[in-house]
C-alpha cells in the first residue's frame, strides 16, 4: 500500500499546489497580467501573432498593470497610525502614452 499511497499523495499534493497557484494568481492580478505579456511574447516569437497584434496586447496589458498599481501603491503608503481626515476627488483621462 505504500506505493499506492505515494502515488495518491503525490497526485493530491500536485493538484493542491496547482489550486494554491491559481488562487494566488487570482489574488495578484499583476502576476497574471505579466504572464499574459510573456505568453504574447512567446506567441510573437513563434509567429503565431504579428508585431501589430503584439503591440496592441502589450499596450492593453501595461495599461491594466498601471491601473492595478495605482490603488495598491496608495494602500502601501498608509501606516496604521495614519488617519483619514478628508477625501479629495479628482477625475483624470486614462494615460494613452504607452
Amino acid at each position, binding site marked *: 500500500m505504500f506505493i499506492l499511497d505515494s502515488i495518491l499523495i503525490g497526485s493530491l499534493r500536485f493538484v493542491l499546489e496547482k489550486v494554491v497557484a491559481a488562487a494566488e494568481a487570482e489574488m495578484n492580478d499583476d502576476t497574471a497580467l505579466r*504572464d499574459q505579456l*510573456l*505568453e504574447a*511574447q*512567446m*506567441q510573437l516569437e*513563434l509567429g503565431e501573432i504579428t508585431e501589430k497584434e503584439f503591440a496592441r496586447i502589450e499596450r492593453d496589458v501595461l495599461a491594466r498593470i498601471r491601473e492595478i498599481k495605482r490603488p495598491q501603491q496608495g494602500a502601501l503608503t498608509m501606516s496604521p497610525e495614519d488617519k483619514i481626515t478628508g477625501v479629495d476627488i479628482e477625475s483624470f483621462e486614462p494615460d494613452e502614452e504607452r
Partner: protein
Amino acid sequence: MRLSASPRRASGGVDAVELDAPRAFARWLAANRRALGDVLEHGTWLDRDDVNALLDLSIPGIDELLGILEIARLSESDYERIVIDTAPTGHTLRLLAAPDTVAAVAEILDALQEQHRIIRDQLARVGRVEASDRLIAMLAAQARDTAERLRDRRQTTFRWVTLPEAMSLAESEDGVGALEQSGLHVDAIVVNRVLPDGAPCPICDRRRAAERRVVATIRRRLGRGRSVLLVPAQLREPHGQRGLAALGRVMAHGSGLMARRSWRKAEPSAIDHLPSAISHQPWRGAHSAAPESIAAFQRASLLFFGGKGGVGKTTVSAAAALRIAKADKKRRVLLLSTDPAHSLADVFQATVGDTARRLPRGPRNLEVRELDAAHAFAARRVQLEAALDEIAAAFGAGAVSASAGSTPELVKLAPPGIDELFGILSVVDARSAYDLVVVDTAPTGHALRLLEMPDAAREWTQVLMRVLLKYKSLVRPGQLASELVEISKSIRALQALMRDGARTRFIVVTRAAEVPRAETARLLARLRALRLAAPAIVVNALTMSPGRCARCRATAAAERREVSALRRLCRGRCAMIEAPLAAPPPRGARALDEWARRWRQPDSSQGHKGQQRTQREKQEA
C-alpha cells in the same frame, strides 16, 4: 570508392563504413520511436504530438552519441578487429565521454517510466516487460559495456596520430593526457608526414631540423612505454589499396627515419634559432594580399575560418585577426577559438584562456579567447539545473526532478554538442562588445555543426515555448519562458547576421593536396546549402620558391595542379589567396605578421569576380 552507411567490402577481408550520424539517428529513432514515445508519454503530460515534435528535433552532439552506439553495435558483430578513424582531438575526447551521457539519458528515461511501471505492476497486476523497458535496459547496458570495453587494455588500444610540428605536439600532449586520465590506453604514437633525408635545401633543411626537435620531444615526453612510429612524407598522397598497403608496411616495420641514435643527438642547432624560412617569391600574375587588403575580409562583423584538420586554420585566422586589428586601430577585434582542442596559445606563444585578453605586445584593439565549453557549462550548472527542473515541471515530469539522480548527473557531464552550443552563445555575447569577431573553428564536421547550431537551437526554443503555451493553465510560464523569449530573439538576430553575406563570411582554409581539396569541395557545398557566404579560399603552406631542390620542385608542381583544381571548384565565386610555406610554421605575433605580409592573390578573373561579388553583396545589404 564510395562508402555507405552500412559496412561494404573495401578489399579482401576488410569492410569499410562511413557513419552518417543524422541518418543513423533517424534509423535508430524509426526502430525505437514507439518505445521512446511511450516512455515520454507515460512520464509526462505531453501528448503524442508533443512527443513527436520533441523526437524530431536535431540533437547537438548526435555524432558522438551515435558514434558510441554504432561502436557498441559493431563490437557485437562478427568482425575480428574494428579500426575506428575518429574525429580530430577535441571531439574524440567528447566521443569517448559519450557512454556516460548515454547512461545518464537511460537513467532519466528510467525515472520517467518508473511510475508507469508501478501502476502497471501493482494496480493492473501486469508483470509483462514492455518495449520501453527493454529499450531503457538496452541503452544502459550498451553505455556500460562500451565504457568498460574502451577502458579494457586487452580489448581496446588507442593510436595517436600527429604531425612533426610544435603545435601538434602541444595538442598531442593534452590529448594523450586526457585519454590516459579517462582510463584509455594509448599504445603508440604515429608521427605522419616526416620529411625524409635529402639533398641540401634552405627550406627542407629548416623543416628537418624543426621536425627532428619535435620528434625528439615526442619520444621524450610521450614515448615512454609506447612505440613511436615515423611515417615519411610522400610526394603523392597515399590512396587506393596499393598506396595504403605501402603505408601499412611502413607502420608495421618502421620507416628507418631518424633512427634512435640520431634523434638522441638532436641538440638545438644554430639553424633552429633563426626565424622561419618562408618559401616566398612574388611572381608575375599575382599581387600581394596581406589579410587587411583582402576584399573578402573587409567590413565583415563575423569571420569564420574553417577547414580540414591540420591545414593551418589557427595560424591563418590568427595572422588575419592580427593584421586586421593592426590596420584599423579603432576596430575592436576578438579572435575566438571554438575548437575544443585549442591552439591559439601555441600559435601566439602566449597565455590565452577562457576570458578574452590582449596579447603581450599585441595591438591594443585585439583580444583573444579560447572557449572552454566544459568550464562554461560547469559554471552555469546551477542555472542549468534550475532550467532543467523548470522544463521537467513544464512537461509534468515530476518524477525526474523528484528522483534528482539523473538530471544533476547529466548536468555534471560535459555532454557532446556543448562545444557548438557554447561556441555559438559566445559569438552572440561577443557581438555587442566587438566590431569584428574572428572565429577559429574546429575541423570541418564540427564547424558545420556550429553553423547549424542557431537553426537547431531556435527549433528547440520553439518546441519548448509551444509546450509552455499549451500547458499554461497547469504551469505558469515563469523564468524559463522569459529566458526562452530572450534566447529566441538573440538567435533570430544571429541567424539574420549569419545569412547576411556583407557582414558574415566563412573563409575556407585548405592545402594544395587531394584529400583536403575533396573536403573543401564538400565544405563549400554545405556552406551554400546553409546560405553562408564563402568568398575566399586560403591555400596554405604553398612551396612558392622551390629553388633547385628536387623534392621542393616536385611538391610545387603537384601543388600547382591542385591549386588549378581548387580554382575550378571556386567557379569564379570566391577569391583564391595563397599563403607560403614557412619552415618552421610562424609562431608569435611578430612571425605571424611577417608571414601574412607574404600572402598573395593571383590576378585571375576568378579572384576578381569573387571580390566583385563581395562588393555587390555589400551594396545589396
